[in-house]
């Protein structure tokens, strides 16, 4: 590989520990390199039958009737289910961990009741002796549709005479119920200071309009679920999910049974990035299992994943920013209209939180619109909403910088958010690392290196993700040989078992490999929220830390019993218990562990947390590109990702998050999009045409881990899973401008779009 003239992938470490900050081999690694790890689709059991889903070919239609008789008559078919097999939820609302929503929306997305709202919308489920028979049977179901006009973009859906997806939906207008139904589920506003005064103080005001296409998380493993509605009434689920408890609670809610009657066993998960939080297949498989008495497995195809799971919103945005001639931002205003897809819940709320989050600005207004359109119901995607917003903000900032003739990083440093800065949506920042990330970018050899040659340019950008805490549980059992078993509920998508176990190891003075972590089912551990919001290493890690502290307390009591001493006089340092009474009494952790049976029985530490001390994370990108002036194709020559990890628990996997997020951001920026026909069909629903980056499309992704410790975590950790996806589109747009002289205001910036922009520029 090309050897740079400096050390790549540095960690700017500020604090040192014994285990935290090292790079042990992950506990689940051997199974994953040998093909032994069991993912959802790998699960099987005696008597298993297969399910398939009939999906709508239309983007917007009323279901007049469904005739399942031909499907039921096909040899090998065991059962067919539709929305009629679910109770009508009426106006009931539920909170399943992501805010209050109408149960009817969740149900209708699982099986359409009276309308289909996107191409691919599930209508019926079939179970049969083989997958091929189930698929054939699904095609035999006859649905009579009344076709309706689809609306596919936020601006179209917001027009006064737009066809309505939900005829009775009166959205919220600045907190009040709107006076008539529309496709706008919510319009909210955040403001700070006096926006008019702020713009009046500006010497320069730049305002631009942006559009970004829907994109998919693109996890390699399709959704899957196997469900057995057992003869004792319990519903047993094996699936790939980011949140086994969300699956449990949502399925119980949809089926109208108590949570205790549902047990979810999370299998290994082949990527999620936010897209494996919603529930699609489990309730359908459960209904089919109830009808047949057999375990039913349903797998999505790749086309199903594109058309029927949740992509992240396309958006229509305007950003306006005012600055003084010496480079101080005086005012900023944003209009963010995000496409929710079929049901309310576009990621515009977090988008609005993050749109100006990197800057300390006195006068701000942000308007957010959650708009339903005839596309799949959107889901979270790594820092959901923030990437769209940062693309707008950071390209406006770049234009300002160019006009003022200021260095891009100096401008950002001058206006950087700091501890005490108030964001327009309310919170005041605790200790954050925006300045440190910008300084690290400025000091990086990449930023100092000259960029030479025609059609080349460099761009920078920065992004913020607030991260979340939420509930996590953890149990630790001490084995007689001094090793421990750790039980947690956070499904491990990217090496979090190791990061969680390492925090317990640090407390107990053990090596990482002496803590054996297992992700268990919902019967076997306390409630644990989704693997999302960059929370696992932080919150489940904190639970492991607290559970280890609980172990430590109990072990000290045992030592006290053996030494007939006061527990206060016993100290635990580096894996050894010391009796502070002037004697030389000491015992290693394993020596004491051996005696647990004779001193009162097993020691089990446990912790349940809902930590408040969440540390947000800033990420920055420096990138160099070359644009082919004859084709518009962008080649990335060099790419550096810088991020504040607070404290990198396992630096290799922090780098992995930064590199993976960066490349998803690159894909979003350059080629990925839902290419929709006018009648609402996604025309590129395969990986051949959706164009995620391949290995041949990328350079090495260099990383710099900045560590500004989070005071809310014992080792200073901040969530690191998301922020890295935010800056790449804007950084690339800014680099493209330097290379080709065109300001891109639309994602993706694919070769045709760049070429068109060059032609438009030449025509002007």
């Amino acid at each position, binding site marked *: 590989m090309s050897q740079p003239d400096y050390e790549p992938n540095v960690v700017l470490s500020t604090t040192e520990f014994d285990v935290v900050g090292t790079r042990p081999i992950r506990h689940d690694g051997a199974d994953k390199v040998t093909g032994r790890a069991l993912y959802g689709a790998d699960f099987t059991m005696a008597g298993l039958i297969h399910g398939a889903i009939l999906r709508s070919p239309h983007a917007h239609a009323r279901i007049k009737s469904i005739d399942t008789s031909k499907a039921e008559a096909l040899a090998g078919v065991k059962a067919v289910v539709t929305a009629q097999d679910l109770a009508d939820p009426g106006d009931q609302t539920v909170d399943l961990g992501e805010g209050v929503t109408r149960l009817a929306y969740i149900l209708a997305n699982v099986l359409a009741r009276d309308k289909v709202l996107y191409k691919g919308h599930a209508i019926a489920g079939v179970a049969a002796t083989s997958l091929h028979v189930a*698929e*054939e049977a699904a095609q035999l179901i006859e649905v009579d549709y009344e076709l309706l006009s689809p609306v596919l973009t936020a601006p179209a859906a917001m027009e006064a005479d737009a066809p309505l997806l939900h005829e009775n939906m009166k959205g919220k207008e600045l907190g009040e119920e709107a006076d008539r139904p529309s496709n706008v589920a919510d319009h909210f506003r955040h403001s700070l200071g006096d926006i008019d005064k702020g713009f009046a103080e500006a010497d320069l005001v730049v305002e631009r309009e942006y559009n970004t296409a829907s994109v998919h998380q693109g996890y390699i493993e399709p959704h899957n679920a196997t469900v057995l509605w057992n003869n004792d009434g319990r519903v047993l689920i094996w699936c790939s999910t980011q949140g086994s408890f969300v699956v449990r609670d949502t399925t119980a809610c949809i089926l109208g049974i108590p949570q205790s009657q549902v047990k979810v066993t999370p299998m290994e998960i082949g990527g999620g990035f936010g897209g494996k939080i919603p529930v699609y297949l489990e309730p359908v498989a459960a209904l089919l299992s109830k009808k047949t008495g057999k375990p039913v497995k349903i797998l999505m195809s790749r086309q199903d994943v594109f058309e029927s799971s949740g992509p992240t919103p396309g958006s229509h945005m305007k950003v306006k920013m005012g600055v003084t001639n010496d480079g101080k931002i005086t005012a900023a205003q944003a209009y963010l209209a995000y496409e929710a897809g079929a049901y309310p819940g576009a990621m515009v709320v977090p988008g609005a939180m993050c749109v100006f989050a990197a800057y300390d600005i006195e006068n701000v207004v942000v308007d957010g619109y959650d708009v339903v359109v005839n596309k799949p119901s959107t889901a979270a995607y790594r820092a959901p909403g923030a990437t769209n917003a940062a693309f707008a903000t950071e390209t406006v900032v770049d234009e300002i910088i160019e006009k003022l003739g200021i260095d891009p990083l100096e401008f950002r440093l001058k206006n950087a958010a700091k501890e005490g800065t108030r964001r327009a949506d309310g919170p005041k920042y605790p200790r954050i690392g925006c300045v440190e990330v910008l300084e690290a970018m400025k000091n990086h050899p990449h930023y100092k290196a000259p960029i030479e040659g025609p059609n080349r340019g460099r761009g920078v950008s920065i992004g913020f993700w607030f991260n979340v805490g939420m509930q996590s549980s953890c149990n630790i059992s001490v084995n007689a040989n001094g090793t421990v078993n750790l039980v947690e509920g956070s499904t491990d998508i990217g090496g979090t078992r190791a990061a969680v176990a390492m925090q317990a190891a640090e407390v107990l003075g053990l090596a990482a490999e002496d803590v054996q972590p297992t992700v268990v089912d919902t019967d076997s551990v306390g409630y644990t929220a989704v693997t999302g919001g960059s929370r696992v290493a932080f919150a489940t890690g904190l639970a492991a830390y607290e559970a280890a502290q609980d172990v430590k307390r109990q072990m000290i009591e045992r030592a006290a019993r053996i030494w007939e001493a006061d527990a206060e006089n016993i100290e635990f340092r580096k894996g050894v218990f010391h009796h502070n009474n002037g004697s030389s009494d000491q015992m290693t952790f394993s020596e004491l562990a051996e005696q647990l049976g004779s001193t009162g029985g097993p020691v089990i530490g446990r912790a349940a947390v809902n930590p408040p001390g969440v540390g947000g994370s800033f990420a920055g990108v420096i990138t160099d590109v070359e644009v082919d002036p004859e*084709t518009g*194709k962008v080649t990335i020559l060099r790419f550096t990702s810088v991020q504040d990890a607070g404290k990198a628990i396992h630096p290799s996997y922090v780098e992995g998050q930064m590199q993976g997020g960066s490349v998803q951001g690159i894909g979003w920026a350059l080629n990925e999009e839902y290419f929709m026909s006018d009648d609402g069909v996604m025309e590129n629903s395969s990986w*051949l045409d959706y*164009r995620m*980056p*391949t290995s041949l*499309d990328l350079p090495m992704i260099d990383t710099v881990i900045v560590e500004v410790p989070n005071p809310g975590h014992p080792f200073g950790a901040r969530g690191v899973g998301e922020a890295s996806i935010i800056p790449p589109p804007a950084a690339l747009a800014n680099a493209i401008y330097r290379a080709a002289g065109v300001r891109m205001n639309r994602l993706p910036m*694919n070769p045709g779009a760049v070429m068109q922009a060059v032609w438009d520029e030449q025509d002007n």
Partner: protein
Amino acid sequence: MKWFNYTRPKTLQEAVGLMAEHGERARPLAGGTDLLVQMRVDRRQPDWVIDVKDVPELNELRLDAQSGLTLGAAVPCYAIYENTEVTRIYPALNDVASLIGGTQIQGRASIGGNLCNAAPSADAIPALIAMGVQCRIAGSSGDRQVAVEDFCTAPGQNVLQPRELLVSLHFPPPAANSGAHYLRFIPRNEMDIAVAGVGVSVVLENGNFQSAKIALASVAPTPLFVNEAGEALAGQAVTAENIQKAAQIAKDAARPITDMRGTIAYRKHLCEVLTRRALNVAIERARHSVQEES
């Protein structure tokens, strides 16, 4: 996928017999990288899948100084690019064999399959047209030959009658001082469908083009042989100006549609750019072939 019957004939006669017996209900299977995908989305629903990979004539890869190259219709791409003699003599065939799909796809996909699939975007076809390739087609009433440029009739459609089978492709020996190249434009660098593609061949003589052939991918319902672009170069000096003229003719001849892969204007523009770039590579190859022989 619908149920079908699978059979694997051992001789050409047996294969042709099966095609004759099942007619429109049969589909030959070589690498399967197009057919199986199409069957899975019900775009093709044969009752009989006739696996031709055991038929010797469809697996032939034979070089002959007089008659040129015989390439069996089922020979996978890797067998082409791993044959150093074939790649030396037919670098444009190497171009397409090594860019269809990726490594794994190239372990299965064949040039013959790419041709029979008759996609407007097929990468192999413009190169085959530029190289003057003839198709050998077998049917129950005997063999016939068809020039590649006459093979495709519409998107996904070709001249094969229901009871016929493509057996092999025949590449004439390259003329002295000749060079060929296939160049496509894709947004990614691999695993992608051409937004536009150009296959060219040139024969040089005393600093002039003796002859040239230019064919385009992805800009018409079938791969497009732009005879007039090549003819415009015949007898002309090898200059940037003349190359640009041919590129302009190719651009004018292209009649693409606007779809998810690009607009009409962009694709026509790419035809010009790619024709120019492809000609320059082919000219270099022709000059290199001169040096090689001297």
